[in-house]
């Protein structure tokens, strides 16, 4: 696309693309009988026909058109969340998946030969270029995740590994660069350990060419010496759908295929869980609970016998905790609107199970771990940790001054919040010796020795980070089946 299209036309095109995708698309058949996980890659046709395998964090201010950019690429208008009248407009966009294609007709030139459609589109749609008549080939299936998500930050901090595979940083072309938040965004990219960055200079339709060039220079200068140095800067107009093909080309060419572990025992971290039954469903039509999350490693298949840990937790009359891991079978798998027979790491995966749906209501399984029966880590009820405390709280902006910001030592009976992997729970300090502490968990956690933890305390009515630790040893909670 060489010149901006009037908005009305662009909207029409979007509408056409959307309606074209409505009927069930021709997707690759996933056959469990012939599945050989050792041959799968994040670009295997059978996989990317149905699910995303590359996670891209979108970073930028909402007012710079973040949701419009994601819509322009994925054709999905993400559900927005806003709480505040003004300031702190905390808008959290949803997950959105997109397929990226290239036209196979050699007559189609770059960048116009690259194109993106929503996740449920056919694998080889007709090229839209008038007179081309060629077919497009599916090259990538990506998942856009709004960043910096705090859970992503925490996971990165605790594990050091990058959760996202790349970042797309959005800058408004009609404002000077840097804006205060731009530096913040680059710092977030740094924290999240992202090396593959694409910078989008959005709203280019609103400025004159000279201004756009000037800003391009400002951006170049600004990213010098940062993690974003050397990243491509693409002028776009998400509103006009201008240069979206260039973004697609860069996603294909600049973002390396991530290395994934498909052969280990599968493990999924639950980040949502729900009961999808219609009210009054009869017993024979009742569907089991659904758990949604990201697969950390391995491949989940329909029919797999699975376990969810720690499962249902109860306390008896004298306060003793018990837990019963949930044992079930995978009935269905899906990624957005696509059904799957097997699911690999990448994007958000929904797992339909036979678990009592009322146990899954309202995110009750969030933070739990799903995997093969007998292959998950132990469930600990108390931990012995090697810890160290910050001297002062981060930020040091407390109005009460220095004294307030000092982190006081751990004492017996302190009640803290502990983040372990993707799980949070409370704990009570039962003993402290030098840099070792014993923590009684308020809820059992499925984890393992050597795992990193973060400790937070209620200070000034907020959970404030006070230190880090490593699990040295844990007391296993015996399960009641």
């Amino acid at each position, binding site marked *: 696309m060489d010149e901006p299209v009037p908005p009305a036309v662009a909207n029409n095109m979007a509408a056409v693309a959307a309606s074209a995708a409505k009927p069930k698309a021709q997707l690759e058949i996933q056959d469990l009988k012939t599945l050989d996980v050792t041959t799968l890659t994040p670009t295997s046709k059978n996989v990317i026909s149905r699910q995303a395998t590359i996670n891209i964090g979108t970073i930028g201010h*909402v007012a710079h058109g973040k949701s*419009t950019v994601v819509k322009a690429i994925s054709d*999905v*208008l*993400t*559900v927005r*969340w*806003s*709480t*505040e*009248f*003004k*300031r702190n*407009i905390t*808008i959290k966009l*949803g*997950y959105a998946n997109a397929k990226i294609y290239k036209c196979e007709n050699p007559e189609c030139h770059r960048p116009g030969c690259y194109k993106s459609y929503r*996740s*449920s589109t056919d694998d080889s749609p007709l090229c839209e270029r008038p007179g081309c008549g060629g077919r497009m080939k599916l090259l990538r299936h990506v998942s856009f*995740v*709004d960043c910096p*998500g705090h859970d992503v*930050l*925490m996971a990165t901090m605790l594990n050091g590994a990058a959760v996202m595979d790349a970042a797309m940083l959005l800058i408004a072309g009609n404002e000077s660069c840097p804006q*205060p938040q731009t530096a913040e965004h680059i*710092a977030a990219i740094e*924290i999240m350990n992202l090396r593959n960055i694409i910078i989008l200079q959005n709203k280019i339709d609103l400025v004159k060419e000279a201004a756009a060039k000037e800003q391009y220079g400002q951006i170049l200068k600004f990213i010098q010496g940062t993690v974003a140095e050397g990243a491509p800067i693409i002028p776009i107009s998400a*509103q006009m759908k201008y240069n979206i093909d260039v973004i697609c080309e860069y996603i294909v060419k600049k973002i390396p295929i991530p290395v994934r572990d498909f052969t280990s025992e599968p493990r999924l971290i639950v*980040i*949502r869980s729900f009961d*999808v039954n219609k*009210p009054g469903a009869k017993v024979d039509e009742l569907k089991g609970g659904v758990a949604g999350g990201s697969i950390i490693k391995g491949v989940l298949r329909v029919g797999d016998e699975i376990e969810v840990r720690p499962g249902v937790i109860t306390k008896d009359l004298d*306060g003793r*905790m018990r837990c019963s891991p949930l044992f079930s079978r995978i009935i269905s798998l899906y990624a957005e*609107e696509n059904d799957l027979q097997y699911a690999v790491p990448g994007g958000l995966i929904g797992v339909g199970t036979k678990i009592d749906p009322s146990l899954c209501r*309202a995110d*009750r399984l969030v933070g739990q771990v799903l995997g093969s029966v007998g292959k998950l880590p132990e469930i600990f009820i108390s931990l012995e940790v*090697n810890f*160290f405390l*910050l*001297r002062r*709280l981060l930020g040091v902006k407390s109005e009460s001054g220095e004294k307030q910001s*000092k982190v006081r030592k751990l*004492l017996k009976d302190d*009640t803290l*919040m502990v983040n372990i992997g993707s799980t*949070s729970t*409370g704990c009570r300090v039962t*003993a402290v*010796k*030098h*840099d070792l502490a014993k923590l009684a968990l*308020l809820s059992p956690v499925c984890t393992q020795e050597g795992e*990193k933890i*973060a400790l*937070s305390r209620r200070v000034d*009515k907020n*959970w*404030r980070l006070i230190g*880090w630790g490593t699990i040295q040893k844990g007391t296993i909670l015996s399960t009641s089946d």
Partner: protein
Amino acid sequence: MESNNNNNNSRDILFKERKDKCQFARWYSTFRRLTFESVIIELPKIVVDYLNSDHFSTETTSFPKYKLDDYEDDIGDDDEQWSTPVGKSKESSMFNKKYYQSYDSDDDTDDSDDDKVEDNNNNNRTNEVKIDPQQLKSFTDKIDEAIKKLGGECVPKLNWSSPKDATFMNIHASLRCSSSSDILLLLKSSDFINHDLAQFDNDIKDLQPDDITPLTLVLRRWANVNIALEFRCFIKDNQLIAISQRDTSAFFDFLPAKKELIQSKIKSFAEQHIINKFNDVSYCFDVCFLDTNLNTVTLMDFNPIHPSTDSLLFDWYELFPEELEHQEIDESVKPLEHFEFRIVESNEGIRPNLSMSSRLPSDLVNMQSTSEINEMLSKFKDHKI
């Protein structure tokens, strides 16, 4: 400028009045037949003080003793003697001493046992506040009695909010409580509850000095409500202008087909039971359906039209554009022209769950500036155990 100030003042007063009217004790008696059975217990000062303090302990099953003052001056060994940690001496060079404390090894020899350390700590708790056991007992007795009356399990809240953000501290991963210690743990862990306490101090006390609703603990009968059937309704000038699905992080495929039925039930419920009966003209209320036939609407709560109320699938600008000051809004957002009922329409574009951010340290959630992020980063990078 002056008129601007006047606007702000009248806006503040409006907000305060709205909040006041949405306090649980203000509406419960009028609507008790339409909502969950509830018991209101006045919060004794000692409990309010505990919730406001930095002390947090679960040491007894009933109620913790606590202290108000800082510990730091009481602890002899908490002086700025930053040495390398003995336990991990090998790696100690990797700690950046500028950022991390070390335990003090001068005070405790290696053969000292845990008990000794603990004794030292306990002796240092000179400013400890012991709670009058009688006063506490009468409070926990009231809770026990209420829980019994409510069928053994309840959901706690204060004047406005429930500690929904703290469910990760509860073994049921929900608001379901069966004892006073369950309740205190949730209240103490919750930012929403703190918001209520602060709001009470800031807004309500000076509003009607003669007629202050006290801070109360509200216990409501627990029910395993299907969150798919919870909805928030927005009333503007006594008109129902919008309804939103309450759980915005999930798509329920049965909902689109039931939308019309749900809408008509809620509309007639609002007209029959809520509008002109609630003591305000603009507000939100939450409802749910407990029966499988979607026949009976149950009232859950009232909330003020206010920035701290979640507008869910709407933007406040769509609902009450005239109340918003000039601000950064997404260009695609326009004020509503007609009544609208929004639900999550498909599995595409599902947003992540918000509850995830309340279970992380606020340092991470509120990072406002580069310097803070960088500081965090450098501290983190020094942390290589």
